[in-house]
């Protein structure tokens, strides 16, 4: 309890209030409210089409919300381009399909944004990039192109690329869903390490082991709404909502 209060005092990293978004007739998000404190680690899960990816993508404006408001690190997301770019440079994102730039080397993938957005000198950007590539344990691949790496290695590069911008928040959109099973662990280990260093993280994933290991809170979404949220132990041992129970039995059942 004391911990939760002190987190509130430090101010929210992300404040989402009554968020709504629809694609044509399809209501993707309905009245979603969620606050993420500094240093908090949130795992969002839910069946496909539940709006979890849409929600995480509204946080850095890859999707535009229609109603409600989002405040990230004290800046509200509006149509103001300056605000959007400021938020994007402070929020790192890792995608399901890695989305590395295939025409650039691993090192260039990591230095591009620091050089062009942060205006860092090349030497400094390369130093930072090598630091984070060592951290995700693939410094020896720096000169290669993404197509020459395995999926797990590519996803670790994608994490390093996001970290090179020294973000205050990291968003993960199903980072292990496109990976072969034997590569999931190396990516999750990297993410756990990051969580242990106190990074604010919002992670859409079905890796319930990861959720139990690092999440402060697990959020379950269905039909564009947050159905249930709780700390992991309570979430997994005594889910309150029927839909949560059904979902958990489906993904933990086998």
């Amino acid at each position, binding site marked *: 309890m004391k911990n939760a209060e002190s987190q509130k005092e430090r101010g929210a990293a992300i404040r989402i209030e009554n968020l709504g978004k629809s694609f044509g007739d399809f209501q993707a998000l309905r009245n979603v409210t969620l606050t993420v404190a500094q240093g908090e680690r949130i795992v969002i899960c839910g069946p496909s089409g539940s709006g979890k990816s849409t929600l995480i993508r509204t946080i*850095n404006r*890859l999707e535009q919300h229609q109603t409600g408001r989002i405040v990230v690190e004290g800046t509200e997301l509006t149509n103001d*381009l300056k605000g959007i*770019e400021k938020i*994007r*440079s402070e*929020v*790192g*994102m890792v*995608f399901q*399909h890695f*989305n*590395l*730039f*295939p*025409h650039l080397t691993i090192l260039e993938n990591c230095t*591009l*944004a620091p050089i*062009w*957005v942060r205006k860092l000198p090349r030497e400094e950007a390369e130093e930072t990039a090598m630091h984070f590539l060592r951290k995700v344990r693939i410094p020896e691949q720096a000169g*290669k*192109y993404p*197509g*020459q790496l395995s999926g797990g290695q590519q996803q670790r590069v994608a994490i390093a*690329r*996001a970290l090179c*911008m020294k973000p205050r928040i990291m968003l993960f959109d199903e980072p292990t869903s496109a990976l072969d099973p034997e590569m999931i662990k190396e990516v999750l280990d990297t993410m756990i390490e990051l969580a242990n260093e106190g990074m604010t993280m919002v992670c859409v994933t079905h890796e319930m082991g990861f959720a139990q290991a690092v999440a402060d809170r697990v959020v379950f979404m269905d039909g564009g709404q947050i159905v249930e949220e709780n700390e992991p132990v309570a979430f997994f041992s005594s889910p309150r909502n029927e839909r949560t129970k059904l979902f958990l039995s489906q993904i933990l059942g086998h």
Partner: protein
Amino acid sequence: MADTASNTIPRAAGPNMRSQLRRLAPFFGTPLNAALTVVLLWLMARFGWLLLDWVVLKAAILPAEPETCAGTTGACWSFVIAKSGQILFGIYPPTERWRAGLVCVLIITTLIASARPSAWRPSLGLVWVGMMVIVLWLMGGGFGLVSVPTSSWGGLPVTLILTVFAIGLGFPAAILLALGRRSKLPVVRTLSVLFIETIRGLPLLSLLLVASILLPLFLPDSLLPDKFVRALIALTIFAAAYLAEVLRGGLQSIPGGQSEAAEALGLGYWKTQRLIILPQAIRIVIPALTNTIIVMIKNTSLVLVVGLFDLISSGKAALSDPAWPAPSTETFLFIGLIYFALAFSFARFADFLERSGAEKRG
């Protein structure tokens, strides 16, 4: 030791000869194939000999005078040699031809120097702008050089200037049009579509005629650009519209995740296009771009219909000299060779670019 060596050699020769024979199988494997091979070899030898005979053995070459060609049944190269200045430089004043020659050297040198990917820096753009300014000064005169109006320009420099300027100015315009056609802003998108579809719907010939004949009827002389400039504008917008559609194909093939990843890193629209999307899109459409650019090189010859003297019209003008027999085949072969050299070297360059890209991605 010596024994084993002498033993292995004949044994190795057996399969070797057999494998060489096997390589002939497609040509002589069946009676029909054998007959076809013999007939084709005979035809090739026959026409090869005729060509060699005409081009070299019976050709009239030196001295480069009209009499040399009299009575020859071979090619009259002495005409091409004697008239090479006129074919290459048209009606450009003969005493100033060195300037036109220098322009060709300058353009070709800049092209070759720009071919290495290691030379692709922002400063290369400045080199090109500088080259274009010097070329216009050398051709047109002023600032210490005798002034030569564009109506006296001719030959290879005209072909090179039209090609390089039309593509050099048309390519950036094409990038903007292609991006415009995919823009989220309705006004930009509509204007781009209208422009591209209108220009693509018109034959180049009609664009050139509009530029040279119709525009003077509507515009007062003081507002009317030079005829050369008007033809250049027509070629440029034509190139822009076609290149834009080729580029759009490339842009569409880049997965949406690429621009999402770039935007998520805080890169704005223009930086995303310049650093992430365009480099990939252009590499994908290199074969189609090559095709369009080679067509553009040859399209420049159409300016002859509006009275500009490109390489082909200069050749035709040279042929009208009554002192000489008019060996048009030789002249057009010579001109064809120049076009071929331009188009072929560009195609080789594009091929090199494509392969260097393929190697990189492993």
